[in-house]
């Protein structure tokens, strides 16, 4: 019950974001931070927003498959920064550059996912081989170890003589 209320409340809230930002503008202002922009407004370009979400989903999917998504996340964050800067400065060229970056992420992500699947298969093969070696070692030890142990024992201590010690 509570969670349903939260979901609906959050959805409504996000929808009102732009209205609230304009309300807030009269009340408070945020100066540009050291990074790309002040981020007073959320990303408004619908195409960019859609592509960010698409790229994020692709990256999340690739990560789930075991792919190394670090370079993709870096690219995605760079694109996010570029979009903010493009919206702040109204620079079309920057926006275009950011969208190209997002397209690249969307294109690369499935390949990274496939690499992840291949790496995970390779890891399983390695595990099976290692297990095989360990089980073989265990079998060899089980069959030959006692025999080998006594052979070595006789070699080392076979020539020893038993001597009676006084007082015992």
């Amino acid at each position, binding site marked *: 019950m509570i969670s349903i209320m939260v979901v609906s409340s959050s*959805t409504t809230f996000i929808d009102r974001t732009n209205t609230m930002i304009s309300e807030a503008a009269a009340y*408070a202002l945020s100066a*540009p931070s050291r990074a790309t922009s002040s981020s007073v407004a959320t990303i408004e370009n619908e195409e960019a927003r859609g592509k960010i979400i698409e790229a994020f989903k692709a990256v999340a999917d690739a990560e*789930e498959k075991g792919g190394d998504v670090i370079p993709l*996340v870096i690219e995605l964050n760079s694109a996010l920064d570029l979009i903010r800067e493009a919206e702040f400065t109204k620079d079309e060229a920057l926006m275009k550059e950011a969208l190209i970056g997002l397209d690249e992420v969307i294109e690369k992500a499935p390949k990274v996912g496939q690499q992840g699947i291949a790496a995970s298969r390779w890891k399983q093969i390695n595990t099976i081989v290692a*297990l095989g070696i*360990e089980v073989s070692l265990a079998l060899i*030890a089980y069959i030959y170890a006692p025999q080998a142990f006594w052979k070595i024992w006789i070699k080392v201590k076979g020539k020893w003589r038993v001597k009676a010690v006084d007082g015992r």
Partner: protein
Amino acid sequence: MRAIILLPILVIAAATAYQGFFPERTTEPFSELAILGASMKIADYPRELRVNESFTLYLYVGNREGRVTYYSILVKLGNRSNFINETVPMDAPIIATYEKILMDNETWIHPTVLSINKPGVNLRLVFEMWIFDEALQGFKYHGRWNQLWLNVTAPRPPP
């Protein structure tokens, strides 16, 4: 004799099988949100400000969710009457938004310079953490929030 030799080999084999077939998983996923003062410590927070006086804070976000996560941090300005808790975000104007995608176990510290252009007593500067939810196709309040209490006074009249 056989058992003494077999036991360590079997223990190693079990460890190999566990590592190979059961990948490490985060048992208790969580995210971190903190506001640091101008010296990047949990101190030196502004309390009394003049209208339009700039102040620096550092936003700290940590991802321990066990997966890549898309965060949106909303900065809102409210007052004593605005309600907020772990399930209900504050219904107040948003003055800034910060978005970042973080890898698992990655942290992010971001400088933010803010100023308030209207006087007020016991103003609440609230930082809320929202996370992108694939099922919702949008951001969902994650229940993490921090706040600063501020008194903003009118600027001194020129002499």
